[in-house]
């Protein structure tokens, strides 16, 4: 197989994988929230209601696509894809496994190991804002525009602490490549802890996680679409598959953020204390590393759901306060301390 064929397969695989996660997440969200709230959730479509996302998809596709009369037509249609595509694209640099040997060829389980993968992720996260803002503005509705405004302010504000938290990681590992970062997390730290980012950067992890919640518009930071105040915020006026794209994009975003959290702070596909490559065959090792990665990612996806159904929502000004008054100073302090420690130890 030529390299481009392999790349194509990888792209398709990651695309399907991202979509699958998004689809299954809609089911997990509904069922898990139901279980937390003493309910059952959707359980009629298929076994355990597993076909519910499919039913939802069919429903969304068959709905009439309504466009508000005074909407900006092109921008209105541009909004949803602009929101969903960056979320998908960010998967490209996620290292979802170590390597697998197929047909005598060693294949790295990552679409492309860009040496600035890390910046790529941040940049794509920033593009996602446009989807919301444009969608909110183009619908020509006050609720939508408020949602869009909130989204802009929130996402731009929380990009700063996120960047700060990630900078410390960069300082620590001395690289921008996500794959190298994962590789550097093998072994142990202080003799007994896994050599994971979270143990080296606990504060950075918390800041990153909070910022990730804000980036993903999840409760407690779901202000752009907070249902009780702004109806559904920036996608109030959307229907049919345009709405579906927004909803899917959100879950894809969750998947990306979970994957990056795992890669940066939880050792990616590596297992602590155990080196799987030593006692597994080359094919089995590839699959196993992917599975390890997936389990870790699934935990974070579940955490997103779990937190959502536990806490209330922030108010707009409090959200900004948290971002600018707490997270950014903390992030700066963390950055300086880390820089100092790195400087002293090297």
């Amino acid at each position, binding site marked *: 197989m030529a390299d481009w064929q392999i790349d194509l397969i990888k792209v398709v695989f990651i695309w399907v994988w991202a979509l699958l996660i998004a689809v299954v997440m809609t089911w997990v969200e509904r069922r898990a929230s139901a279980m937390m709230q*003493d309910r059952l959730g959707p359980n009629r479509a298929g076994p355990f209601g597993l076909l519910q996302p499919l039913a939802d998809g069919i429903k969304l596709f068959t709905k009439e696509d309504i466009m508000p009369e005074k909407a900006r037509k092109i921008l209105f249609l541009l909004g949803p894809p602009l929101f969903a595509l960056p979320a998908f694209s960010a998967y490209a640099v996620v290292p979802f496994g170590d390597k697998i040997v197929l047909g005598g060829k060693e294949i790295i389980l990552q679409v492309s190991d860009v040496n600035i993968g890390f910046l790529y992720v941040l940049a794509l996260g920033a593009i996602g804002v446009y989807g919301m803002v444009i969608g909110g503005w183009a619908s020509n509705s006050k609720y939508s525009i408020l949602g869009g405004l909130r989204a802009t302010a929130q996402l731009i504000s929380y990009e700063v602490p996120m960047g700060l938290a990630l900078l410390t990681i960069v300082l620590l590992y001395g690289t921008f490549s996500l794959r190298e970062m994962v590789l550097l997390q093998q072994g142990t730290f202080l003799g007994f802890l896994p050599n994971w980012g979270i143990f080296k950067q606990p504060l950075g992890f918390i800041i990153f996680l909070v910022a990730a919640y804000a980036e993903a518009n999840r*409760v407690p930071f779901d202000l752009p679409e907070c249902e*009780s105040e702004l109806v559904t915020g920036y996608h109030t006026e959307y229907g049919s598959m345009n709405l579906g794209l927004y909803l899917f994009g959100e879950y894809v975003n969750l998947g990306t953020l979970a994957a990056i959290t795992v890669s940066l702070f939880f050792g990616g596909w590596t297992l602590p204390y155990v080196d799987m490559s030593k006692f597994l065959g080359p094919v089995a090792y590839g699959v196993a590393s992917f599975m390890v990665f997936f389990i870790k990612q699934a935990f974070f996806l579940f955490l997103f759901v779990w937190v959502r159904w536990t806490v209330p929502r922030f108010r707009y000004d409090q959200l900004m306060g948290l971002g600018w008054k707490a997270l950014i100073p903390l992030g700066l302090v963390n950055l300086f301390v880390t820089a100092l420690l790195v400087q002293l130890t090297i």
Partner: protein
Amino acid sequence: MATETVCITTGPADVGDYVSLNIGPIHPAMHGTLRVITRTDGETILSAEPEIGYLHRGVEKLGENFTYKQFLPLTDRLNYCSAICNNVAYELAVEKLLGIEVPPKAQLVRTIMMELARIADHEVLVGILGVDLGALTPFFYLIIQREEIYEIFEWHHGARLTNSMGAIGGVEAPLPDRFHQKWPKMRDSIRRANDETDKLLTHNRIWMDRTIGVNAFCEEDALNWGFTGPMLRACGTRRDIRKDEPYLMYNEFDFEVPTGKHGDVFDRYMIRMLEMEESIKIIDQAYAMYQEMPDDAPLMKKVPKIIKPPAGQAYHAIESPNGELGFFIKSDGSDKPYRIKIRPPCYMIYQAFEELVKGEMISDLIACLSSINVIAGELDR
């Protein structure tokens, strides 16, 4: 009580740059059919004008054309969260007009049912407040308890929501077997659900930030605006009609009246949480008294089949879950009331809505609306 106050200053609402935002009548957070026309500067509210009447059904006009018995089912449709309180308030008003007092056993049954309704109402309110502030989960923990309470209602008089409980002159049935079987367990489960809500919300900083100091209101203003019930008690006035002008047998029960300090959303929430506990206490005491009564103790006062109160007018108020619920009835001696005026508690509170939310943010408007517990049914009548 002199609390430190500040004047809320916002820009003028009629000049300059503002966005007029029409919230409701179709909006997820507008309980029922409320509508608020706001003018906002960014997210800050410059003015908020509530518009009501979307659910106006002319209950008072209907009442003038119905007999006294026929009007009872209509009172269910006022505050549908605690229909029993409306029923009993109306019955008490007519009984006052007739000059009768129902037998003590019937009074106890009414008391127990009313307190159960109060718990149900407060549970809905606290749950909805959580939902509007983004926490959906406590709502479900509370709503299960409400279902249990509704089951008791169903076994007592056959309906869950629109109860039409009792009749003028007493109640039709003693406490149902379900109540005897379930109450000890239910008491614990209500307490547990409240504890869980407490755990999820009260000390959570997000919740505290969202509620403490939001829509704080002065005591004098509250009295001037005619606030009653938990809203007034949250401002610091210890007023509860059950204590101050006891009706039924409330003077024989031992219970506390929780009061707040600032009249903010948090105080209102806490007062309702505490009142549920007090209601449980009242039910326990009433139940103990009820059990001492003989089985064949009368439940009904003998009233004529066609109720014709003597000409005159009377006003009777009870402490409904939201405040003073009064029925003013003027009789001309015929079998139909000459004039019925309902004094719904949330009506008086909701008229101060602009004062409550001015200078706050849109999110606080939603929180304020939920914490008032505006029920469109009794607001518009």
